[in-house]
């Protein structure tokens, strides 16, 4: 019965929208009794692949064989019945119910709501069996993050999962908890289950995994090789690639020396106190894996949130917080990482979206406003039905061009661009990159948050890597392996 491998994935392709494919012909074989690490940068396709295995997504092409039989129906229920369980990065527990009630909800025994004692026993039995302690009779929202994580895993094991997928399980855990979790994973594998851990952290791969698969831009660059055959450097290189950076398409003058942005011991949330200066004409790249302080730094630079300590200054005066029109008045352009959440009002027209944060208190009639929007839309090649079309109707590339058309409209003094090319087709990405660099050439100080190192190496004059909220500076020529190591939290090595 255990002869068939728990899961075999062959030639799986998946594409979202018009951008590059998220998965481009991926093969993966998972074996019973092993802990398998899946590594890769943000957007490399790790989560997409695992979501397909868990039935949360469907491949465009390729086959998935689970427990010896090909999967035809990609639904969470169908795959759960075949013994696949996934613990997602974002918890899916009901916060007001207790641990036991959450388990009973996932796998009911009969129609009645089970009694408190009974569900508590169920949790305690499971917790003891797998060595994952969870308080049974407290509402989930009062459990610690680690406990919630353990409960998620218990819930998966409660359904007797043969293949357990953990999406970045240690991202929210403290070190001791992470170590304990890895030990549990080893024990589960020893029982003959297959465990997959998606991670960014190289240290964990060496601490507890048998084999490792590395994804890069939707393709497998290291297919299930034994961990013992690798060291940190080789994995870091595989993760970030070894392709030479393409030459810059724009010649830019050397930095002019005027300090446009100055952070003095600024800290917020996960971001530890940071000193940073960005000069006019300079592009500072910020690299790092999600959840290491970039979001906080982005908020500080864009005036969304105030630093909990220290100061953020733009051109010598403090950054206005929660006053976006003042931010625009200081010519700080902000291209947020999540453009649909922060930059575009979907139901409103393109003309209205161009007017956000700008424009007089008395507005012109709609016809004239839309007329005035036409030149900007044309200059940025925003392809849409017209200035009256809704922003939600735009494709990703055109939506981002619309954001830049607005933010870079008046020559900016500062550009805060968070993953400005994420998910875009190459043509749109290239245009946006060139225009941001052109703004820098015109004297803007640019902070570019990037997910892909190739891109950052190409655009950035200097690089800062954030890991655990601590910044490590790098100067060109960049050492790809060293940067990759710093991103994976192994700066000390």
């Amino acid at each position, binding site marked *: 019965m255990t002869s068939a491998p728990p899961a075999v994935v062959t030639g799986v392709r998946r594409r979202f929208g018009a951008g590059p494919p998220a998965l481009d012909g991926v093969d993966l074989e998972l074996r019973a009794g092993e802990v398998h690490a899946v590594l890769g940068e943000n957007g490399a396709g790790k989560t997409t692949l695992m979501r397909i295995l868990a039935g949360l997504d469907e491949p465009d092409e390729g086959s998935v064989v689970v427990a010896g039989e090909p999967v035809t129906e990609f639904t969470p229920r169908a795959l759960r019945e075949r013994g696949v369980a996934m613990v997602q990065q974002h918890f899916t527990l009901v916060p007001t119910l207790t641990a036991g009630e959450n388990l009973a909800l996932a796998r009911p025994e009969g129609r009645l709501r089970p009694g408190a004692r009974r569900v508590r026993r169920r949790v305690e039995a499971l917790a003891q069996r797998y060595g994952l302690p969870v308080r049974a009779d407290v509402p989930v929202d009062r459990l610690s993050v680690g406990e919630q994580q353990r409960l998620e895993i218990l819930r998966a094991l409660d359904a007797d999962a043969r293949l357990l997928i953990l999406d970045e399980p240690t991202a929210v855990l403290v070190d001791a908890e992470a170590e304990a979790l890895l030990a549990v994973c080893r024990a589960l594998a020893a029982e003959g289950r297959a465990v997959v851990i998606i991670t960014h952290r190289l240290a964990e791969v060496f601490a507890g995994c048998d084999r490792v698969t590395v994804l890069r831009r939707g393709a497998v660059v290291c297919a299930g090789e034994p961990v013992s055959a690798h060291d940190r450097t080789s994995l870091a290189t595989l993760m970030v690639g070894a392709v030479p950076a393409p030459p810059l398409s724009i010649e830019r003058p050397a930095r002019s020396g005027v300090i446009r942005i100055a952070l003095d011991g600024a800290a917020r949330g996960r971001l530890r106190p940071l000193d940073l200066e960005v000069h006019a004409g300079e592009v500072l790249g910020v690299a790092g894996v999600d959840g290491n302080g970039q979001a906080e730094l982005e908020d500080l630079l*864009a005036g*969304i949130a105030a630093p909990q300590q220290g100061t953020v200054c733009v051109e010598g005066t403090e950054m206005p917080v*929660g*006053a*976006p*029109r003042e931010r*625009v008045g200081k010519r700080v352009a*902000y291209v*947020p990482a999540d453009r649909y*959440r*922060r*930059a*575009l*009002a*979907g*139901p*409103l027209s393109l003309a*209205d979206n161009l*007017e*956000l*944060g700008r*424009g*007089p*208190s*008395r*507005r*012109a*009639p*709609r016809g004239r406003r839309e007329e005035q929007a036409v030149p900007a839309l044309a200059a940025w090649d925003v392809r849409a039905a017209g200035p009256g079309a809704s922003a939600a109707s735009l494709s990703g590339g055109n939506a981002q061009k619309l954001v830049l058309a607005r933010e870079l409209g008046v020559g900016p003094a500062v550009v805060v661009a968070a993953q400005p090319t994420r998910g875009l087709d190459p043509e749109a990405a290239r245009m946006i990159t060139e225009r941001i660099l052109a703004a820098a050439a015109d004297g803007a100080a640019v902070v570019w948050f990037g997910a892909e190192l190739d891109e950052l190496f190409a655009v950035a004059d200097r690089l800062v890597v954030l890991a655990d909220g601590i910044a490590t500076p790098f100067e060109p020529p960049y050492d790809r392996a060293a940067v990759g190591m710093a991103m994976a939290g192994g700066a000390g090595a």
Partner: protein
Amino acid sequence: MTLTRDPAPAGQQAPDGLVGKALRGPADRSPLGLVAVPLLALLGALVVGGVLMAVEGVAPLSAYGEVVRGVFGRTRGLVDTAVIATPLVLLALGITVAYRARVFTIGAEGQYIAGALAGTAWATVGPLPGLPAPVLVVSSLAVAVLAGAAWSGVTAWLQSRFGASVVITSLLLNYVAAAVLAWAVRVGMRDPGSFTPQSRQVGDAALPDLPGTAIHLGFLFALLAVPTVAAVLRRTRFGFRVEVLGANPDVLAATEARPSRTRLWVLAVAGALAGLAGFVEVAGVTGRMTQAFAVGYGFTAIIVALLGRLRPLGVLAAALVMAGITVGFDEAERVFVIPSATVGVIQALIVVFFVTGDALSRRRLRRREGA
């Protein structure tokens, strides 16, 4: 150590569910769907209402004929329709502004009472007796507007300070206002010369009739408020922020203004219009405050705003229709033996059919796209 905390964005989104769904409008945003669904809902409600009347032994067509005659067959019918429509238009315009920003207040009733009470208090027991009539009218209206805005502002403050749901606090403040009304007419500003609990007459603060009609001046306010609110929504930065807040509060925060401040202004405007409606009703119709002053216009106005598709002109049309139905049935009840609850049943059916019609049109569109 700071005492302020970020209001939970999730808490703000939660009440969107039901009301938000009802307000999403037709599936394809076509002009046909905008108008056809409300009209069909009206028709359907009248058909079902007719069946109910037939069950009661009343010939529906002659009853409806009497309803139409009750409105259009006599001057009094048209006058009454305009008078009833007046507070509905003002209240529903305020609700329109709020709901466009997806600030789902249901406190119009309380703001209406607060405005009426404050205006009446100013006019009857105010600190400046003996003001000339025009000054008294204008100052009383101003007091009413401010009182309505303040009453509504409490909701905004509770939200930004404690993260309390606008839906809940605005609803509960209605009961506070009703209690204040009961106290005011019995104790606070009771007419000492009256046996029943009621305030003094507003006297010189009463609104004159429009020349040549029996309709009080307030109807003109309502008519003027329609293009004014339309212009504010379309042509001012505040109107733009209302739309952006409704579309995406995070975008508003990142590019335009603090959502909490915009929300405060939105609620203040809604409350101001409700307060205005309140005192207009006192000064134009009742002449004084009594316990019976609150008849639920603040809730009917939500229906009016909904049927008017959150558009000022639509609100005017919907208010006139609702007022017309009320007046017409009032007349028909005198002629036929129709239970007085019939008009309420029909108004409720309009809403049911309206919401169902929108849901059906959305589902059909989804099917078409899914196929």
